Structure formats: C-alpha cells, structure tokens
C-alpha cells in the first residue's frame, strides 16, 4: 500500500472579470516608471501597486476571498491580506528566474493576458536538486506525481493561481513574438 505522507497544496480558479483596466494599469505603471526588477530576466516588473490604483480593486477583493478559501483548506489562518502586489510585463523571450516569496504565507499570480506560447509557470519539488542526482534518467521510467522533480502549469488568461510562499517557481520564456504576457503577482500576509 502506498501512503502520501506530505503534500504541497495548490489552488487554481478562473476569474470572470474585465481585464482591460488591468492592462491599462500595467501600462500606466511602466509609463510612470514605477519599476523594480527582481526575479525577471528581461521584461519589466512594476513597483508596488497601491490602494490608489483603482483598476485593481475588483481583482484584489477576489484574491483575498480565494486566499481565505485556500488557507482554510490547507489549515492556515484566514486572517489574510495582500501584503504586496506588482505587475509583470514580459515580451519575446522574457522570463523569470527561480524564486520564492519569503516572509509571507501564500504567493500567487493572476494572468491578465497570456497569449499563445507565452511560457508556463514551473514549480519545483523542494528536493529538486537531490532528485536530479538520485532519481535521474537511469531511474525514471514514466514519471508521475510521486516522482516529478518539477511541474509545468499553463499560464492562461483569467486564471488565478495560489501556492505556498516557500515553493520555488520560475516562468518560461514568452515565445510569442507579437504579444506580451501580463500578470499581476502578489503575496498574502497575516493581518497585523
């Protein structure tokens, strides 16, 4: 009998909202030069989106709502609020290096615009490096959820993804030469 003794939770849901204000917000942030590039390799990452940026209010409410649902299912506190939020705009071949979101509880991303071939988001097993050593091609046959070292999830317009803040992830290059990938990323913190 096989038992799963630890699991890493992940939450996804489609949000039926108007993305035009969020596209406008992303353009506004870049036009105002509100930029702080952290994990991006190419492309642009905005500075903090604030409460004054009205375009994001509807999305922010839904993020808080779904983060609480996720937290309850995982067994974490539901006393959550958005601690930081920023926009990512990635053009051709722009990507994000591996990173996680220290000091928060839940990390997440909402895809404002995810054109064809714009790159998946890749999550890494916490023992990714060790698995590469000992569960390599001479060991693997048909990898499944128990033996994957990483998992690629499609970036798709309108989808909200939530995950543990400590889970390493990266974003593949946007291979669409004409359209940009636009996302809003955020960290959920416990209310102080």
């Amino acid at each position, binding site marked *: *009998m*096989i*038992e*799963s*003794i*630890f*699991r*890493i*939770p*992940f*939450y*996804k*849901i489609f949000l039926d909202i108007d993305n035009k204000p969020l596209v406008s917000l992303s353009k506004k942030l870049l036009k105002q030069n509100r930029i702080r590039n952290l994990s991006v390799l190419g492309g642009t990452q905005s500075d903090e989106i604030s409460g004054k940026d009205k375009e994001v209010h509807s999305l922010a409410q839904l993020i808080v709502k779904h983060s609480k649902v*996720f937290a309850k*299912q*995982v*067994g*974490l*506190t539901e006393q959550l609020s958005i601690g930081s939020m920023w926009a990512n705009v990635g053009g051709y071949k722009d990507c994000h290096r591996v990173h*996680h979101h*220290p*000091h*928060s*509880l839940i990390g997440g991303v909402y895809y404002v615009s995810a054109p064809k071939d714009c790159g998946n988001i890749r*999550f890494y*097993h*916490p*023992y990714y490096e*060790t*698995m590469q*050593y*000992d*569960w390599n091609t*001479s*060991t*693997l*046959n*048909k*990898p*499944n*959820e*128990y*033996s*994957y070292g990483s*998992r690629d999830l499609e970036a798709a317009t309108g989808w909200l993804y939530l*995950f*543990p*803040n*400590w*889970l390493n992830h990266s974003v593949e290059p946007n291979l669409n030469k004409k359209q940009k990938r636009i996302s809003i990323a955020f960290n959920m913190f*416990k209310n102080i």
Partner: protein
Amino acid sequence: MIQNLFPVPVYVNKIKSSVDLKTICLDMVNGESVKRSNKGGYQSPDIKDNKNFSKLIYAIEFAANKFAVNIGLKNNLKVDTLWANVNGYKDYNLIHSHPKCVFSGAYYVSVPKNSGRLEFYSPAYEGIEYDWNDNVQNRNITNSAILNYDLEENLLLIFPSWLKHQVEPNLNEKEKRISVAFNLAAGV
C-alpha cells in the same frame, strides 16, 4: 479548486519472517559494529550477503519494484546495503537521508512499547518552519513539517532515499528496538 503537487510516497506493508531475526540480530551485538546516524545502540556492518536475510531481501526487492512501478520509476532495484539496528534505552538515530540510492527503508523485527517512532521530515520543512508554523490552525499533511510514524513488529516501510528522517529514543528500559534497514539502488 485545490490540488496537490509533489505528494511524498511511502510503501507500507506487513510481512512475517519465517526466520527468527530477533535472535539473529541480538547475537550480532557483540560482533563488529559501525557508527552512522545512531546515537548509542548497535548498528551492524553490511549484512546483505548473510544467508539468514536472503528471504527478507527477496521480499524487500519484490515490494520495492512494485512500489517503483507505481510511482513511475524503473523496476530494476536491488538491495545495495542491509544492516541491523539494536537500540536499547534512550538510544536513537539522528536526522539523516541515504544519498546515492533510490529507495531506503526498514523492517521492524521487535518494537516494544514506547520504543520510539520514526520521524519523517517534510521536503518543505524549512519553509513550513520559517513562515507557516505560527499560522497553522489545523495540522494536516499539507502544512506539517514533521510526521511521527508509529511502528509495529513485522512492518516493512520503503521510502524515497532523499526523504530525511530520524528515530525517537527508545524509552522502554527493559526491551530493545530491533530493525533491519536497507538501501535499494538501480541495477546493482
């Protein structure tokens, strides 16, 4: 919708040995020993070639290869090393993993009352300890840094070799906890 990424698999079964492994292991205690993760107690050198353990090795390899297929690995696993552990009062094993193999495990020969549990550490141990622990309301397998696994006689456990674990002290003053541990590697 919630889904789970990267579940950590452990193979669990009970098998009864037709050989008196308890007496065989206790007889080893005065012979050659090695020191690895054990704090106190006795750990034998590699006894893979000891004929007394041939049937156990056969059962381990059969189970491990079945386990391997179920989790997407090749079924070419062989026992690489096998050793006996005999732990007396307050003897325990430090946290460790088993590099350069595929699976590791233990067969529990004698598990007296209060002789300690096997503690598995989540691959996400550091992240959970650092950012989540103060905010956990209901402990479960998606938010636990450690799982204490209750042991019993004749239990066979097989788990990924990279999964860190330790063994709690044996708090039974009279009886010893006896196990046979092993590593499995591909096509040895």
